[in-house]
């Protein structure tokens, strides 16, 4: 056994009383689900390994583990384990609590009622599991970890199932190809041909070309220098077209690390549960300001441009943006 694994096991054993208490509560509420304490504990261990221990550099504190267990969706996990075991009572509860919701999600996503129904049927069959490995039926429920809510997980499963259904009807379009339509994979158009007329114009064009290249490199490097949560915010807003209220929803959970990172960055901490659209807008503006600062720093430091030249770069970029050819032809990886 690896030393790290021994340490993880020891830590989980330390939390044994806490896990036993969670199990007692869950089985007290659902005594007919037939989930064994050992299986429940093993599942929590697996989840901790996947999320907590894998993300750490081997230094998980008992406070972190405590907080992790506290945030687990234990009731949902308890039901999922029972359903994975084929417990009739658990399935009935699951059906009562979630079927209506699943149908509404499927109808919202699918183009036709028939597609929605087909997806629900497929998901139910997958959840039960028709594949048997070493005499054991493999239920989709066994991939649910209890880290997020069961409903959130079901939404994801339904979404994927609909994508599969769509692919089946579109001559095996790969998922990668499907996502390429969102823009990032779009092919670059060629640079507009330059037809210089006279030496002055050639020199001018060379200068412009130099400014263009410097602008593109500087913007690329400025973006690369941002922290990952800032990059993600900008990508969500500009590439995936998430609206401000949708991003606000993503960080609505008060314990959301994304929200914490932005609040730390802007040195503000809002009280109350809701993150407003105006707050997200402020985060975006802070990110633009940071990009501008890094952009100017590179043009000054690396390219030795004067303030006037930087202004020319920005002006030229504005013209190119209007013409739609700022990044055309430049390979930016």
């Amino acid at each position, binding site marked *: 056994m690896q030393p790290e694994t021994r340490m993880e096991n020891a830590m989980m054993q330390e939390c044994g009383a806490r896990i036993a208490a969670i199990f007692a509560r869950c089985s007290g509420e659902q005594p007919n689900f037939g989930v064994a304490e050992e299986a429940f504990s093993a599942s929590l261990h697996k989840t901790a390994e996947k999320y907590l221990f894998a993300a750490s550099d081997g230094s998980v504190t008992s406070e972190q583990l405590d907080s992790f267990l506290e945030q687990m969706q234990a009731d949902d996990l308890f039901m999922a384990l029972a359903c994975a075991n084929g417990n009739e009572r658990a399935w009935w509860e699951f059906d009562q609590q979630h079927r209506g919701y699943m149908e509404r999600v499927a109808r919202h996503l699918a183009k036709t009622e028939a597609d929605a129904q087909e997806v629900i049927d497929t998901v139910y069959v997958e959840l039960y599991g028709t594949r048997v490995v070493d005499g054991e039926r493999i239920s989709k429920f066994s991939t649910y970890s209890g*880290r997020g809510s069961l409903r959130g997980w079901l939404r994801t499963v339904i979404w994927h199932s609909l994508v599969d259904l769509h692919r089946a009807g579109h001559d095996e379009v790969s998922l990668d190809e499907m*996502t390429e339509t969102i823009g990032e994979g779009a092919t670059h158009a060629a640079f507009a041909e330059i037809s210089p007329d006279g030496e002055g114009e050639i020199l001018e064009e060379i200068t412009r070309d130099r400014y263009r290249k410097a602008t593109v490199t500087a913007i690329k490097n400025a973006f690369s220098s941002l922290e990952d949560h800032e990059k993600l915010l900008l990508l969500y807003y500009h*590439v995936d077209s998430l609206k401000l209220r949708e991003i606000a929803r993503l960080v609505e959970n008060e314990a959301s690390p994304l929200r914490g990172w932005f609040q730390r960055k802007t040195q503000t901490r809002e009280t109350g549960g809701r993150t407003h659209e105006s707050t997200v807008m402020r985060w975006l503006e802070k990110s633009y300001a940071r*990009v501008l600062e890094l952009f100017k720093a590179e043009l000054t430091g690396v390219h030795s441009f004067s303030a006037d030249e930087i202004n020319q770069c920005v002006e030229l970029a*504005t013209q190119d943006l209007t013409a739609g050819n*700022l990044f055309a032809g430049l390979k930016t990886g």
Partner: protein
Amino acid sequence: MNLQETTIQGILAEYLTSRAKATPSTPHLDHDTLAAFTEGNLSELETRPAVTHLVDCSFCRHIAAELVRLDLEFAEEPAARASTESAQPSKISEVLSGLLAKMFGTSENAVFAHEDKEKKEEEKKDEKED
């Protein structure tokens, strides 16, 4: 925002939509991680690798964005309903048999592991009786 900030916003937006696809250095996020991430249920330690992956992987980011939209769409949904104790549980195996029959034409080949042994024993009994 001043004029330069407004311009940089436009330049940045153009760059982000036209930049070449990055190759993620980690495997795609699974259903479970995507769902927990979009709900904001992961801790700081757990979120960090997911965010790093999402920055590089347009595929996972696209799914996560769709899930955020869905989450907002269904935000008004009440929490899971409590069950009605008086109702009688229906046999889920019967429901699934029905689904399989609908999907594959027959449920005879469907695998219900916990029922297999019982079925085989019953078949043997029938054969003996014949």
